[in-house]
């Protein structure tokens, strides 16, 4: 490659301007991943405050209002700041390399969609310093608590959500355009790695529901400042309508956070089982059906609002149906491991933990779908345990698995396997000690979002907090491993993992600043 006479083949610019003005998918991917990690630590700090307050009965550290601000900010920052940008970061880094494209389809928009994010989160976080305090109405911000009764910082929250939404929409458009238009010759849709497939479907979900969220917060804005009554019963509105609009966004949003995780795990398990993924086609169809079903189950979050029985039954049945395609996925992963030749490097450990713990979260999800039982589970710690099982050892573990899996490709060095495994085992133990007892708390009747609790909940809360501190502290190991890996270590080969398949492993490690400026040899493209 001769850099001198070809503008498009130069290396990265120097200094800060490299990052500010970059249109390179790898740089932007790195920015997303670092940003997401920073938000993970910030949201994690809020979680530590919550677990510290709940360590013992009684109010020790924070007042109830600040506690509510912590639960709200923890949820918002983890969902919109940590998990979603991490997956966008992975998509930026890997999708062009996986489909043999030189870059994303819309590189300048790519830059923009990242760089508005820090502003959104700076605005959101700044509310903590405001006199009224940060939003304290929960990340689901049900009206009228979030409208008529909201602190004045709610307006900043609304604008921050608008910006996050714009960023996600631009990211999604970019991914769809890249996947549909930039594939190398020979890379047919049904030859795409599952990570690309799951992201393509996720991107469509984003485009369908982020505007609805924008609509919901816009209606809130109008109710608060311009005297409309979308959600205000006094003017003929309906607070329950807010919940319908919110969960019409909110349920697909849940799958936005888990579908790319399915893609990651579907890449890692075959690599370390040294065996092709079982049932590629059914994986694609299962993903698509989950995405479709996600649009018709939203009201299972609202079984206690007093819907007519026909509505309750419809949403119960539809929700139960989701277990079928999700089950197919789990069975396929197990079948991939079955009669493979497995090794257990850190990415594989995280992927296996994902399969087990995500499935446990899926089981509790099925229990929650059963409407009469949900009357008992709803808004208790059982729900908290459920969605943390699918989001932490689910989505977050898959992101960590992905980070370990592709780190050698990104940095050119192998990460420290011993530290990686230490990180895994501490996280695995921590996450279970943290969230498993919360099932018991919920069943025993502890409501969620309370700063203090009755004495019979004391033991499990104490255990849960210990698990929380362990899990929180072990994430610093990840930071250390990543920095160590960037600085140096054992040189990684292009192949990196013995059993790895796919175009990203055909380029050198670290991946050159520009890859696939000319399309790859179609012979390199295999069936998945």
């Amino acid at each position, binding site marked *: 490659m001769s850099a001198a006479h070809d503008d498009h083949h130069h290396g990265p610019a120097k200094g800060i301007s490299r990052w500010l003005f970059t249109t390179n998918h790898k740089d932007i991917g790195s920015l997303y991943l670092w940003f997401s990690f920073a938000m993970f630590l910030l949201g994690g700090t809020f979680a530590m405050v919550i677990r510290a307050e709940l360590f013992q009965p009684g109010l020790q550290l924070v007042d109830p209002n600040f506690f509510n601000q912590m639960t709200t900010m923890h949820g918002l920052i983890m969902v919109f700041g940590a998990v979603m940008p991490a997956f966008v970061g992975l998509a930026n880094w890997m999708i062009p390399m996986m489909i043999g494209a030189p870059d994303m389809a819309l590189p300048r928009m790519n830059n923009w969609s990242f760089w508005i994010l820090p502003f959104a989160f700076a605005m959101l976080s700044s509310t903590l310093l405001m006199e009224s305090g940060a939003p304290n109405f929960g990340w689901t911000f049900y009206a*009228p608590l979030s409208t008529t009764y909201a602190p004045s910082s709610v307006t900043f929250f609304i604008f921050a959500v608008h910006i996050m939404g714009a960023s996600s929409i631009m990211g999604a458009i970019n991914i769809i355009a890249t996947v549909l238009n930039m594939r190398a010759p020979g890379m047919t849709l049904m030859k795409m790695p599952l990570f690309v497939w799951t992201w393509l479907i996720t991107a469509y979900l984003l485009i369908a529901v982020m505007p609805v969220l924008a609509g919901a917060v816009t209606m809130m804005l109008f109710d608060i400042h311009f005297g409309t009554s979308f959600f205000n019963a006094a003017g003929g509105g309906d607070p329950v309508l807010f919940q319908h609009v919110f969960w019409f966004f909110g349920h697909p949003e849940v799958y936005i956070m888990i579908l790319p995780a399915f893609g990651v795990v579907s890449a890692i398990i075959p690599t370390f089982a040294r065996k092709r993924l079982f049932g590629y086609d059914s994986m694609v169809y299962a993903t698509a059906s989950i995405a479709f079903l996600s649009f018709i189950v939203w009201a299972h979050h609202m079984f*206690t609002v007093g819907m007519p029985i026909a509505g309750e039954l419809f949403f119960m049945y539809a929700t139960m149906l989701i277990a079928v395609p999700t089950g197919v996925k789990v069975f396929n992963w197990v079948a991939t491991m079955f009669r493979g*030749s497995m090794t257990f490097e850190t990415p594989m450990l995280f992927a296996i933990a994902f399969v087990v713990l995500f499935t*446990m979260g899926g089981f509790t999800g099925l229990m929650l779908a059963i409407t009469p039982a949900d009357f008992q589970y709803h808004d208790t710690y059982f729900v908290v345990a459920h969605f943390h099982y699918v989001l932490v050892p689910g989505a977050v573990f898959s992101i960590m698995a992905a980070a370990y899996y592709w780190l050698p490709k990104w940095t050119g060095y192998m990460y420290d396997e011993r530290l990686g*495994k230490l990180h895994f085992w501490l996280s695995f133990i921590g996450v279970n000690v943290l969230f498993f007892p919360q099932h018991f708390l919920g069943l025993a009747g502890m409501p969620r979002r309370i700063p*203090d609790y*009755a004495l019979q909940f004391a033991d499990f809360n104490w255990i849960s907090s210990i698990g929380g501190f362990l899990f929180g502290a072990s994430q610093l190991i990840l930071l250390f491993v990543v920095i160590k890996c960037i600085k140096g270590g054992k040189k990684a080969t292009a192949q990196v993992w013995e059993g790895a398949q796919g175009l990203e492993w055909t380029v050198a490690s670290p991946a050159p600043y520009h890859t696939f400026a000319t399309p790859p040899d179609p012979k390199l493209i295999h069936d998945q």
Partner: protein
Amino acid sequence: MLPKAKLWLALTIAALTTMLSTSLQAAWDLNMPQGVTQISRETYDLHMQILWWCVAIGVVVFGVMLWSIINHRKSKGAVPATFHESTKVEIVWTVIPFVILILMAIPATRVLTEAYDASESELDIQITGYQWRWEYRYLRDDMNEEEVSFFSNMSTSREEINNQLPKQETYLLDVDNPLVIPINKKVRFLLTSNDVIHAWWVPDFAVKKDAIPGFINEMWTIVEEPGVYRGQCAELCGIDHGFMPIVVHALPQDEYDAWYAGQQEQAAATRAAANNTITMDAALAQGEEIYNRTCVACHQAGGTGLAPAFPALAGSSVVTGDLTENLQLVLNGVPGTAMAAYNRMLNPVELASVVTYIRNSFGNSTGDLVQPADVNALLQEAQ
């Protein structure tokens, strides 16, 4: 690494088994309570049934996986097989879960249909959520009957919450006025809210429903055993969401009837007492008690308030200023702030006492003694 994985799985399974085996002795601790109504028992059975299905599926799926992890590892010289699809297998593991789901859906539908049938109730009670208390109003057949209605506030002291006093057994789950219902009668609850969305939940009855401002929801229960049952608000409703418990006393019919008659008498007596005069000492004593129950959460012990949301009462221009204005403020609240209207939450004697108390405490020394009749005059002004 592997022994650890096994150990952990074993521990998880052990925890699960413990949870199930001990559930009979200590239902409150690890598992859903079976409760004291037919619906709550059916809900519990449903819950256990689904749980066992999940455990069974988990054992099979994780069992196969664990077996593969142990036997199909490279270090044991395993050679990867080459199979990677089978339509037959895919159909099998699509159909089997589907059948299991239908088996789950049938009892679920049955229980839900029962739980939704609130018709033919024998006693109707209106429950209204407030930030952060419940109001119970027993519906009458005739407006000429004396009405029984009261507010139910958490009675756990702030000292216990702030770790200055040892916590009692019913910490955070005690109220001043519990809801009282008869056993073996179909009681229908009509739920609504004064401000934001709350949710009324008693686990032992397996009833939980949202109280939504401007809307009315219904649910019902038939409690079979006399006893004291406790629950909490389940929907985030603001600062003191964690501090609005629910306590229900279920009494045999005759005891309930006696209690209800007593409440009616008391309501009549309260109306009459509004014409009595009270002494300064009595007013200060009762006022202090009401202050510590009702006002202290925001205005704090010593009337110091909690800036910026909750103004101090010590030296406040309102509390040391015009008496009528002060009374109006307590009666009608301050719209748009946390200061609620107390005209219905406290009776005239209580209102007179608490206003007397705040005007003569925390260094305030107006010397005013408010009489119930003064309060009544303001309340009645409209008529």
